[in-house]
Every structure is written in C-alpha cells, then in structure tokens.
C-alpha cells in the first residue's frame, strides 16, 4: 500500500514536471497558476466566515501554501525553459 502510494505520488509529480517541460507556450503553467489563484481566493472567502481559531489557522496556512505553489510552478517553468513565463 505504501509502495503504491509512493509510486503514484511520484508518478503524478513526474507528470506535472513533464507537462511543464512540454509547455513551450506557458499555457499549461498559466492554467495551473489560475487554478491555485482560484482555490486561494475561495479559501480567503471561507476565512472571512470561519467560526473557530483552528479553522482560521488551517485556512491561513492553505492560502499561504496555494500562493507559494504559484511561485513554485512559475519557478519550475522558468527553470525548464530558461525564460520568464509570459503573461
């Protein structure tokens, strides 16, 4: 079970890296940035309505994580293509 999980997560990770590597136009990278932007904004809306401290703390960490994910994806794409990601 653990080996299967390990294989799956690293297979998915390799697939994301391959997608970014083959994404010469940056379209897929921008789609990933948009995805994490959407979930960050949704989490921000949930944060305003959060009832407990623990919920607020989790949402705050997730929002920071989603924003950091955008920076990672941009960095990976720019490393793979040796260029700035076009807007």
């Amino acid at each position, binding site marked *: 079970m653990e080996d*299967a999980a*390990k294989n799956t997560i690293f297979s998915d*990770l390799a*697939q994301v890296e391959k997608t970014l590597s083959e994404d010469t136009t940056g379209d897929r990278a921008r789609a990933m940035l948009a995805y994490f932007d959407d979930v960050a904004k949704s989490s921000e809306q949930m944060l305003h309505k959060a009832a407990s401290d623990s919920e607020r703390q989790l949402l705050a960490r997730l929002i920071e*994580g989603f924003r*950091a994910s955008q*920076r*990672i994806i941009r960095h990976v794409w720019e490393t793979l293509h040796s260029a700035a990601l076009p807007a």
Partner: protein
Amino acid sequence: MPTPSHAESTRYPRVYYNLMIVSLLGSIYRRHDEAEICSIAVEATLKDAGRYRMFRAIAKGIGGDASVASSMLEQHLAEHPEDDRAKVTLAVAMMLGGNPGWKPIIDRVLALSTDIPAREAATSVLQYLGTLAPTPTTTRAAA
C-alpha cells in the same frame, strides 16, 4: 494538474493532493522556502504526516539535499529501529542527495534484515546502480 488516483481512492481532497505534489516539486527544484510554506499547509491537512515527510525527504534528495533524509533516518530509527523498509527508502534519498552514508545502511539491511521486501528493495538499488557509471550524485536543477 494530474488526476490523483491515490487521493481519490483514499478520499484525500484533490486540492490538498495538488498542493502536496507542488510542494514536492518545489523541493526537487530547490525552492526550499516556498516548499516549506506548502509543507506546513499540507501537514496541517494530515492526521499522520510521517509518510508525507518521507516523500519530502526523497524529493529533497532528488534536489540534492540529503540532510532531511539523514535527520529523518536518525529520528525514525530511534523510534522504529526494526523498520528496514524505511531505512532503504531514506538511504535512497541520501544517495540521491550525495550523502555517502547511504551505502552502509543498504549493506546492513542486506546483511541483517529478515524483511524480504526491504531486502529486495536494497538489492534493486544496488542492481540499478550497477547499470550506471559513475555513481549518481547529480541534482535535477539549479536554484
């Protein structure tokens, strides 16, 4: 983002799984500051972060940093001295990160372990390395 078959099978929310994937990618590509932020968020979503930390040790090893694997190995073996599968996993992470301490660990598993999957994994590591020359110590990408 990929279709997370494992995430769906274990009902772990897809958005968290995607965050996990990107955090590991950040470790491989040496964006350690950003990967750390993601990891804090990922761990907050997990009841037991042990397996994720092992994934992260491997990812950091691929990125050329064996320190996490080394420290995890010490901590994990202090708590679970009989866990030969973890020894092999973390030894691989150390090898990927260029820490020569991986070899005695693999040798000890092969010499002493009665855990068949651990022995098979250790043997596979050595067989794989036998197909390579020289021993790999390179990293995936520059920061």
